[in-house]
């Protein structure tokens, strides 16, 4: 029962362009949605989050959009840089963090 889905296993973009990573969820009880970035041989690093009461959160080059009616969120990276190449995990959590669900991940490659 995958409550969080990332349907694109990989994405390739040119340096300087926009990267858009997508995520869908099924459980409307989630309070927070997060994106983690993972380099090989390292643990996931927290990138950005959004509360379920908001529809947009921005942090530098990274913006997360939440569409609650569609149960969909996306991460926009503008402009994309080669150092952004990593696996990105979408996650959804209740407020107390005791039930966080992860997607399968999307491997982003940013080409110079």
């Amino acid at each position, binding site marked *: 029962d995958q409550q*969080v889905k*990332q349907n694109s*296993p990989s994405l390739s973009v040119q340096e300087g362009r926009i990267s858009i990573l997508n995520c869908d969820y099924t459980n409307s009880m989630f*309070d*927070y949605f*997060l994106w*983690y970035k993972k380099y090989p*041989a*390292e*643990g*996931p*690093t*927290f990138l950005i*989050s959004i*509360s379920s009461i908001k529809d947009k959160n921005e942090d530098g080059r990274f913006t997360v959009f939440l569409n609650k009616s569609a149960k969909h969120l996306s991460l926009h990276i503008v402009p994309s840089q080669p150092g952004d190449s990593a696996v990105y*995990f979408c*996650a959804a959590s209740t*407020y*107390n*963090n*005791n039930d*966080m669900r*992860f*997607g*399968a*991940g999307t491997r982003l490659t940013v080409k110079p």
Partner: protein
Amino acid sequence: DVKVTQSSRYLVKRTGEKVFLECVQDMDHENMFWYRQDPGLGLRLIYFSYDVKMKEKGDIPEGYSVSREKKERFSLILESASTNQTSMYLCASSGVGDRGYQPQHFGDGTRLSIL
């Protein structure tokens, strides 16, 4: 900066062995978690603990147990290792929500191979 340290980066064990994976966090976090990561499946929760000596099962607890005797340390135990437990194991910690929502912070993982 939050520091979550896993005792081993790579570990090779034999079928039937009892295996201990250790995790220590330095931020006085109440919550600690153990996940395994497998290709195409993302991260799946094995167990979590919200206080010393407290534990809750996650989605895939079979074949595993945990121990939390001190707040900063959370151990994952494979009672009798099997080849299907070959995986990347990730430990995480987070504070409680009275200081606002706090995301989980992860260690660098232990890649465990069971032969």
